[in-house]
């Protein structure tokens, strides 16, 4: 029989420490929707999504009620759209994005990911059409998320794609200037993109995935922070052990909900993504965990070590708790989505350079970063190239989600609203990387031995 203490511990996690299931994401294969006729393609896409996901939101809400754990988001990820629309004569893919948006609205999910292209070695004609459609697609849709994979460890880095994405990010920011460049918050540039990531904006349903699947992302920074705070005097070895045990408990909740959701929806259970995902809410911050470990402010010396400890302990506890761990499974440090991170950036404790360094020990280093609106496409491309290189060399997924906010300069504050939060505009280096970026080409795949 469960003890009173155990039951109260779980209740406290949910009621006081913001433990929740961040997302239940249904992955849907759209490859069989390809058709020469663009209208027929859209009809097939719409029908497939709305039939597969018709009960997704109801099931999510039922589970939240029965099991007493909030399920914050119900979402959909689809096959990268450039793979299915290539046989249509369309030059612009915005209509396909609008179709995804309508389907997402019809089933009641808040985001749908997969307006995406995989171009790590080169562009197909369809990939190019999709990428050039991104600014308009993100301007005209509300729920669609786009991602582009520009590098893998096995293929190297497509620097032409990196440069192009620098330009596309600028155009997207301009297209959504009235909302502070909000479109860029729904656009991720990836290295080694996971095929089963449930988190937006980078979720896709990869080509190695089954017809339909359920992936789950958990969120419990507040729970981890609470145990770190309770153990002020223990050494870091003991602290790691405590974090590990707690990570086990919160991941079990994800495993349970994922399995139940898959069972009720009649599709296979995919993975639990054990990433710690913060929200702008007080007490739901990753930065606060590190500060509870003994750092005066996130970003100071020691931050990389503390984040490495945290991420590793999460993986150890999470891997034991779930039968299938996947997705990004690191720690997220999205500046605008974590009030304490944003505060560190305002105070000058946290710079873009430190965030890039942190990528070495977590999953998405440059995430939801606002930079001045006059940042050049070449500089944005160079920031992407740096971040992506860390992933390529270290055989891991890394990503960039950066917003050059039109009309804003360093020190201004930008409001994105809801879970996307608010962030200060951070400074970028002013010395030029233009000549380097303009060279373009492909950086070869790295040597994976001689590993220093």
């Amino acid at each position: 029989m469960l003890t009173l203490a155990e039951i109260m511990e779980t209740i406290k996690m949910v009621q006081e420490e913001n433990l929740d299931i961040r997302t239940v994401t249904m992955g849907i294969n759209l490859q069989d929707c390809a058709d020469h006729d663009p209208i027929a393609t859209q009809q097939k896409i719409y029908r497939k999504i709305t039939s597969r996901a018709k009960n997704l939101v109801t099931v999510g809400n039922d589970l939240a009620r029965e099991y007493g754990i909030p399920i914050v988001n119900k979402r959909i990820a689809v096959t990268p759209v450039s793979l299915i629309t290539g046989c249509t004569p369309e030059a612009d893919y915005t209509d396909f994005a609008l179709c995804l948006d309508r389907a997402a609205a019809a089933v009641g999910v808040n985001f749908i990911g997969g307006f995406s292209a995989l171009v790590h070695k080169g562009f197909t004609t369809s990939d190019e059409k999709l990428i050039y459609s991104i600014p308009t697609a993100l301007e005209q849709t509300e729920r669609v998320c786009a991602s582009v994979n520009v590098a893998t460890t096995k293929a190297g880095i497509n620097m032409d794609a990196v440069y192009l994405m620098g330009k596309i990010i600028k155009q997207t920011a301009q297209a959504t200037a009235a909302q502070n460049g909000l479109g860029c918050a729904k656009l991720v540039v990836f290295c080694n993109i996971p095929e089963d990531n449930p988190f937006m904006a980078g979720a896709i349903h990869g080509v190695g995935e089954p017809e339909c699947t359920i992936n789950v992302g958990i969120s419990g920074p507040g729970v981890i922070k609470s145990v770190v705070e309770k153990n002020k005097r223990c050494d870091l070895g003991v602290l790691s052990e405590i974090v590990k045990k707690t990570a086990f408990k919160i991941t079990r909740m994800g495993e349970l909900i994922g399995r139940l959701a898959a069972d009720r929806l009649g599709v296979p259970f995919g993975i639990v993504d054990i990433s710690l995902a913060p929200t702008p809410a007080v007490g739901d911050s990753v930065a606060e965990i590190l500060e509870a470990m003994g750092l005066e402010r996130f970003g100071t010396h020691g931050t990389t070590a503390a984040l490495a400890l945290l991420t590793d302990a999460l993986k150890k506890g999470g891997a034991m708790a779930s039968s299938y761990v996947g997705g990004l499974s690191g720690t997220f440090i999205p500046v605008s989505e974590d009030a304490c991170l944003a505060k560190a950036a305002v105070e000058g404790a946290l710079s873009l350079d430190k965030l890039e360094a942190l990528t070495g020990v977590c999953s998405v280093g440059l995430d939801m970063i606002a930079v001045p609106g006059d940042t050049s496409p070449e500089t944005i491309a160079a920031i992407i190239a740096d971040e992506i290189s860390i992933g390529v060399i270290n055989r891991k997924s890394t990503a960039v989600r950066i917003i050059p906010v039109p009309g804003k300069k360093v020190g201004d504050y930008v409001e994105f609203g809801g879970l996307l939060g608010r962030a200060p505009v951070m400074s970028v280096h002013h010395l030029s990387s233009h000549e380097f970026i303009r060279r373009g080409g492909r950086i070869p795949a790295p040597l994976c031995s001689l590993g220093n």
Partner: protein
Amino acid sequence: MDKGQGQGKGNRVIITVLGPDKVGIIAGVAQILTENNINILDISQTILQEFLAMVMIADMEKSKLDLNDLKKQLLVKSKEIGVRIDAQHEDAFRYMHRI
């Protein structure tokens, strides 16, 4: 679902009551359970900083209600007594604390 951990004991719920201690809390909850043929398996309680934390484990095998309707009745009762009452499927706790 994993049969061993899930559906074998699939009808158990955990009812938790949190709030200022007062007369009639257990009786109020127990009355709802009795009326709906829900068997109480275990009750434990403690006082946390002047607040009552009471936990009931109940079996809904022969219940006249499903969990959702039970939650609705408990919500009415919780407003009447002025405490927080929740009912959750036992697996939410079992999965977290038992391997």
